[in-house]
């Protein structure tokens, strides 16, 4: 891979970013982590990310709104939704809005790495978990 995969991680629970960020860095991704959805969206205005990983339930803005805003600005970005409250309805809503995948929390970093590899492949980039 000549270019690093740029991944933005957004979860209002700080430990999630702290855990997932290094796990994705290890596989060669360039990651930025955020706990505040507003700050994350400001950053997304400045830079195009290849993959955005976002929680669903957050106080200021929910993950579905983040998903819509990301895809409105950058349709090529793959948005992976993570949620501790994943249900059939949430899954279908996320998919209908264009999510690339949904993972139910808790999950292992290796599970997310597999999804990131698939996202990279669908962008035509090579990456191994």
């Amino acid at each position, binding site marked *: 891979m000549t270019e690093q995969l740029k991944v933005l991680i957004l979860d209002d629970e700080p430990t999630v970013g702290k855990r997932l960020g290094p796990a994705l860095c290890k596989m060669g991704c360039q990651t930025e982590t955020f706990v505040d959805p507003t700050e994350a969206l400001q950053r997304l205005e400045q830079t195009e990310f290849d993959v955005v990983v976002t929680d669903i339930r957050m106080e200021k803005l929910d993950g579905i709104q983040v998903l819509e805003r990301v895809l409105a600005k950058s349709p090529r970005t793959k948005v992976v939704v993570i949620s501790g409250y994943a249900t*059939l309805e949430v899954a279908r809503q996320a*998919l209908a809005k264009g999510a690339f995948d949904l993972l139910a929390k808790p999950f292992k970093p290796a599970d997310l790495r597999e999804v990131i590899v698939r996202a990279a492949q669908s962008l035509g980039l090579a990456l191994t978990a």
Partner: protein
Amino acid sequence: MPVVAICAASHLPGQDLAPTLASQLGYAQVGAEMLPQIASRLQVEESKLQAALGAPKAWQRINPKLRARMLAHIKAVLLERLESDRVVSSGLAAHLFVQGVSHLCKVRLIADAADRAAVLAQEQGLKQEQALARLEALDADRRQWSLAAFGEDESAAALYDLVINLSRVEPGQAVKIIAGTVGSRKFQPMTFSLDRLRDQALASRVRAELVALDPEVRVNAGQGRVWVQTIAVKRQQEKRVQALKVLAQGVAGVADLEVQVLPDLIGQAADTMR
């Protein structure tokens, strides 16, 4: 790929849609042809299983322990098949027991009572009025059966993603509607839904192994971890836990196992009165 579970009301006009749909989607169709495999696991005659599933009253006449084993094995075999993807399932109640899997499209096929009664009247040589009354009784039986066996009323529209009335929609059009729905983004598999299906399949495989020992046993699974809950009187608790552990640990896919035993208060009260 998505999977489809069809629940057809009895005596629908026209041909069974499931084979046509499976062929159009390039999927396998699963249903009654799985009964020999299930009967063999249960060590019962296939005809006995078929009779039990075919008539709600026959189902009620079966010994409750055997009923629990039948349901457990049907779930285990069918979920194993659904896990393998690209499947149209009909006639084995997947719509009633597979829960929360977003890439499973549940379809209910119905028709106007007069059309269904006409099919029944021709099949059994009845007058239309007799057939209507028979149909009403059959539908009531089916509702009772689905509630008793799975806690769901199979005639409730809210249970399904699609309800199609074959008196109003041509069969070919119905197949197109289902195929189109299944092809939409909402029904595409994702990590969440594949995990949910895998967890339910593992829990069902474990439960099928344990149900002969405890027909009321509860089993849940998540990411290879399995939680078993049983009820036993104090003097039998240790023995029960050991027996369940031995059986559950032999099931493929069980990485971690926890068995919780709750006191059987009624059994203990009976013990003290002896």
